[in-house]
């Protein structure tokens, strides 16, 4: 049992007492006590009593502090004074004061160590500075051993406005010290260590550079630019770039003692993760981000392996495998209410701030409480945050909104510094720190490999490490694509490591994989070119919805969408009939299918739009009006055997042996194997006549590649001949008010695509023609609810700006006449031509894609590919014309 005290109110915000002078060089502890005592209205001495629960590297406390204490570091210090114990809670509990400048301080340049090259120096200085600029960083009670430190602390009332819960107060030397001796680095680290977890992660990286510098006289920056200098890099490993080798070399600098901020076996503090996020958010280089994450994961594996799972989930912004359908994505309205409850600020003010900054995370971080607390909340831990997230996400029924708000509010009240912003963003369902899931997988693989091989010991890395790291990444990515469940993956990795991962974590009935996708092509001739010496087959591309049907041994049937969402309750008719259509002896199977709407009267396939009129979930069998037909075209699993790595020929055989097709209910996709141009053209025409979109061309010896847009599958649409290679999936982010006849509705819309790497929406085109009046009204009605006051910070667009902005929600499929380089639109910026984006010309709306999320638009890479293809075709045409 902890004993705290009401002293919360002690240090509160007495108006800016002169702290500076109080801090005496020789006796910092006394000084602090004095300071505490100098504060008015101090209750009984009881407040001093406190049992310190867990030994921490250094005592931290919340500073009272009207005047802003410049964060300063005393260079060359080796003393690490701990905050006096008694005071800690007094001030900490206050939770109310402390100073923080609302904007990152630019001022004190941290101590950068001297390395032998300019580059190295430069890089380090930047990194160190970044650390300094961490807006919420507390100050470390560095030391007051020097002489003039106290005096150097400049009160700066104007910046002291914001209250804060910073744990640590740093008092040091005022003068910026850009560079000092290396020796100072050590002390800085010590000083910064106590609570600067982010600083630690950073130091991991910094140190990397440093050690390199020591070993071969080349710093981090220099090394990247000039890899040839490094002898070790010359021993090239096949398939691994020099960068990877350089990266691998960094791993010998992993130092658990500086990174681990908590006791082994104790829950991982959420602050550790938030600091890692913060560090990652400030980086854009994939390699650096991976390294930061590897260090974080290794620390967790070393100290509290059982928390690795929640850590990884939180990194990916998920809380459960996607097929379980437990997602956060809490609406802004409820988050604002919770924030208001937690901080005591009014909804109106928060909404205003959200308008201004466009990011609830920032609003939450800034909105430090105007409400004091009785006692300080205990620090958040990763498992607690994760569990609360899951509770929030799975809460339903009576008063669930209210209970959610309570839980969120509690999280927000308990959070401090940078934790608040990340909790907010995680609740929204998107961290926006530029951390792609693939990076998480790579980091996970590396961390597991390194902890297994090297452990916590510092050991020189051998030349083969880069290669092994790469192999590890591949096998983890492979395992995850086949079995997208971190529960399975991480459990296995922790227990067995990477050995035989493939046999332990693999595809199985019940866990859907993301479907394999096809690449667009411009015509039959391109197909023939691409598959010149390869056997291929063509299948009708039905105009419906992807469905992965899992028939499990226990007789259970589940149907998953292309996003691995559970669609079972949408198709009770399919579920009821499927088991009867299995051939005798089939116990389990997974089929890849396309569901289309089907008119039983006319025996005709009906358009996609009809299918979308079906209710989304909890459909009752007797209510089914829109009948569906299932076209199976692949079999991924049969009677316990995983088939994804078998060839298409084998999988087709398996498919035929698994099901007994029934007209109008379950059929095998119509296909044809031929190499004849004319015959293929006819087959393509037939497919269109049959009401499909065209053909999918597949190589017969290819395996099933989950979640990949593979070049083994090509799609061939009839209308390709008319314009650009394919239709585009775009999201509507803005609109212009209509004029004349279109008054009252929107006249034109701004379209964007989603860039997964940058986590941003990039404008691709304006669309304004080809709408009927009725359609425009419908579109306006469906979009109005998504209107936002200003563009999100992650929208990238040029001029002119639209009149209204939308939350990126509605995905449209559009057709375009042409793809062109655009100086104005930001889509795929720089991918084809430096400084320029790609735009689509004369777009026309094909249909609204309710089955796609805003993050599933055409990707910048696809767009760039399509541009290149088009260019190649045009070139070919020109050549032919000539």
């Amino acid at each position, binding site marked *: *049992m*902890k*004993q*705290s*005290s*009401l002293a*919360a*109110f002690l240090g*509160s*915000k*007495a108006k800016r007492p002169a702290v500076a002078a109080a801090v005496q060089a020789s006796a910092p502890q006394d000084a602090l006590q004095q300071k505490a005592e100098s504060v*008015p*209205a101090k*209750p*009984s001495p*009881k*407040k001093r*009593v406190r049992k310190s629960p867990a030994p921490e590297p250094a005592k931290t406390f919340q500073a009272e502090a009207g005047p802003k204490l410049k964060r300063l570091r005393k260079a060359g210090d080796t003393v690490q004074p701990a905050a006096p114990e008694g005071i800690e809670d007094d001030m900490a509990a206050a939770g*109310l004061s402390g100073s923080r400048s609302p904007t990152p301080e630019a001022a004190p340049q941290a101590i950068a160590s001297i390395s032998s090259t300019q580059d190295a120096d430069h890089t380090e200085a930047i990194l160190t500075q970044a650390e300094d600029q961490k807006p919420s960083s507390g100050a470390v009670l560095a030391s007051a051993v020097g002489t003039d430190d106290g005096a150097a602390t400049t009160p700066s009332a104007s910046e002291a*406005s*914001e*209250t804060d819960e910073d744990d640590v107060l740093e008092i040091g030397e005022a003068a910026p010290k850009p560079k000092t001796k290396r020796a100072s680095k050590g002390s800085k680290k010590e000083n910064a260590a106590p609570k600067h977890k982010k600083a630690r992660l950073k130091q991991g990286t910094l140190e990397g550079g440093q050690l390199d510098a020591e070993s071969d006289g080349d710093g981090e920056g220099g090394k990247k630019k000039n890899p040839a200098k490094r002898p070790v890099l010359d021993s090239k490993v096949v398939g691994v770039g020099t960068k990877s080798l350089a990266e691998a070399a960094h791993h010998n600098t992993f130092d658990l003692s500086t990174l681990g901020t908590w006791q082994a076996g104790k829950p991982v503090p959420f602050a550790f993760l938030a600091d890692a996020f913060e560090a990652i958010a400030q980086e854009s280089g994939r390699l650096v981000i991976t390294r930061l994450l590897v260090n974080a994961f290794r620390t967790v594996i070393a100290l509290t392996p059982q928390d690795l799972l929640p850590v990884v989930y939180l990194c990916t912004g998920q809380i459960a495998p996607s097929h379980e359908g437990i997602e956060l994505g809490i609406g802004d309205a409820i988050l604002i209410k919770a924030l208001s*409850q*937690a901080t*005591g*600020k*009014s909804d*109106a*003010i928060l909404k205003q*701030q959200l308008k201004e900054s466009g990011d609830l995370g920032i609003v939450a971080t800034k909105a*430090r*409480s*105007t*409400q*004091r*607390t*009785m*006692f*300080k*909340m205990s620090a958040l831990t990763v498992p607690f945050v994760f569990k609360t997230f899951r509770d929030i996400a799975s809460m339903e029924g009576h008063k669930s909104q209210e209970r959610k708000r*309570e839980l969120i*509010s*509690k999280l927000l*009240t308990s959070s401090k510094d940078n934790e608040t912003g990340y909790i907010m963003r995680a609740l929204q369902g998107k961290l926006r720190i530029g951390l792609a899931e693939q990076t998480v997988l790579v980091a996970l693989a590396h961390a597991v490999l390194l902890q297994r091989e090297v452990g916590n010991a510092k050991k020189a890395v051998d030349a083969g490490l880069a290669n092994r790291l790469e192999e590890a990444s591949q096998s983890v990515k492979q395992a995850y694509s086949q079995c997208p469940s971190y529960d399975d993956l991480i459990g296995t990795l922790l227990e067995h490591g990477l050995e035989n991962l493939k046999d332990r974590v693999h595809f199985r009935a019940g866990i859907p994989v993301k479907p394999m996708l096809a690449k667009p092509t411009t015509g039959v001739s391109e197909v023939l070119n691409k598959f010149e010496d390869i056997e291929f087959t063509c299948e009708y591309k039905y105009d419906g919805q992807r469905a992965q049907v899992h028939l499990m041994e226990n007789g259970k049937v589940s149907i998953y969408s292309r996003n691995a969402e559970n669609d079972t309750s949408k198709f009770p008719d399919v579920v009821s009939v499927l088991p009867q259509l299995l051939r005798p002896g089939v116990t389990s199977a997974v089929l890849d299918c396309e569901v289309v709407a089907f008119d039983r009267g006319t025996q005709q396939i009906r358009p996609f739009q009809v299918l979308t009129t079906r209710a989304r979930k909890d459909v009752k069998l007797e209510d089914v009006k829109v009948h569906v037909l299932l076209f199976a075209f692949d079999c991924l699993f049969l009677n316990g055997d995983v088939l994804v790595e078998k060839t298409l020929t084998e999988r087709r055989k398996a498919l035929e042996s698994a099901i007994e097709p029934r007209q109008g209910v379950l059929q095998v996709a119509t296909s044809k194997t031929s190499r004849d141009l004319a015959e293929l053209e006819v087959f393509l025409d037939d497919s269109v006549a049959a009401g499909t979109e065209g053909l999918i061309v597949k190589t017969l010896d290819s395996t099933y590649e989950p979640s990949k847009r593979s070049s083994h599958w090509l799609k061939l649409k009839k209308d390709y001949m008319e314009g650009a290679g394919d239709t585009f999936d775009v999201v509507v982010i803005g609109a212009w008010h209509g004029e004349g006849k279109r008054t009252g509705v929107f006249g034109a819309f701004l379209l964007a695509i989603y860039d997964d790497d940058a986590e941003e929406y990039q404008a691709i085109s304006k669309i304004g023609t080809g709408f009927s009046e009725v359609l425009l009204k419908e579109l306006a009605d469906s979009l109005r609810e998504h209107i936002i006051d200003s563009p999100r910070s992650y929208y990238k667009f040029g001029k002119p700006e639209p009149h209204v902005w939308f939350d990126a929600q509605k995905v449209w499929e559009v057709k375009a006449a042409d793809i062109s380089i655009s100086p104005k639109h930001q889509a795929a910026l720089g991918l084809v031509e430096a400084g320029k984006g790609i735009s689509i010309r004369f777009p026309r709306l094909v249909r609204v894609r309710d089955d796609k999320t805003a993050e599933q638009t055409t990707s910048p890479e696809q767009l760039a590919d399509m541009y290149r293809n088009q260019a190649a075709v045009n070139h070919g045409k020109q050549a032919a014309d000539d």
Partner: protein
Amino acid sequence: MFEARLTQGRLLKQVLEAIKDLVTDANFDCAATGFSLQAMDSSHVSLVSLMLRSDGFDHFRCDRSLSMGMNLNNVAKMLKCAGNDDIITMKAEDSGDTVTFMFESQNQERISDFELKLMDIDSEQLGIPDTEYAATVRMPSGEFQRICKDLSSIGDTVIISVTKDGVKFSTNGDIGSANITCRQNTAVDKQEEQTVIDLNEPVQLTFALRYLNSFAKATPLSTSVILSMSKELPVVVEYRIAEIGHIKYYLAPKIEDEEMEENDG
């Protein structure tokens, strides 16, 4: 073994109503001295401290100190089943995982047993120091309840300022502002209708009305309420329950307006 019998069962029902909005789960501590509870709301902004002394019960036995974790809503659900005039007896074994509420109607015609599962609640023992307060106001509890209710229809926060003449409650909202002043009034005969101000120095503090409204749920327990305030410290809102104990609510003040503006600006 813990056993406590209370003739006025109504009192226990009212106590539960007075705390269940503020706190979801809490530990009831049973000791030889009495039956008590101390808990904070989920945001740690307020604290409720309940004390029912052993001598206030008709029968009180507590062999060993116990801490019983309960979900207050569930306790309230059970107590709702007790009649207002029922005699309530609470019983628990030292190492048991349940607590029993027994309700006896006055004429002993109806006896009911309700057994509630206990839960493990992690709680901190919070030390609350005794403090000299700068200002203490005793006023009719109904008046206080009405003020809180009226003001919360105008604004979210209340500024309470105490001077030697009286205590002023003010609020500001979108639609306008409101001020209610209660003057020192010791002229009335009945003590419970008096407003008495004991002042060392004038105080002014800002609070979230939401919490005060929750506190006012304790109004049926006492005819008067005592507000104790000091600069920068939580207000104590105390309801004395005749002959048996008290409920004290502590509420942390808000940071004052000028600073809010600075923060927001």
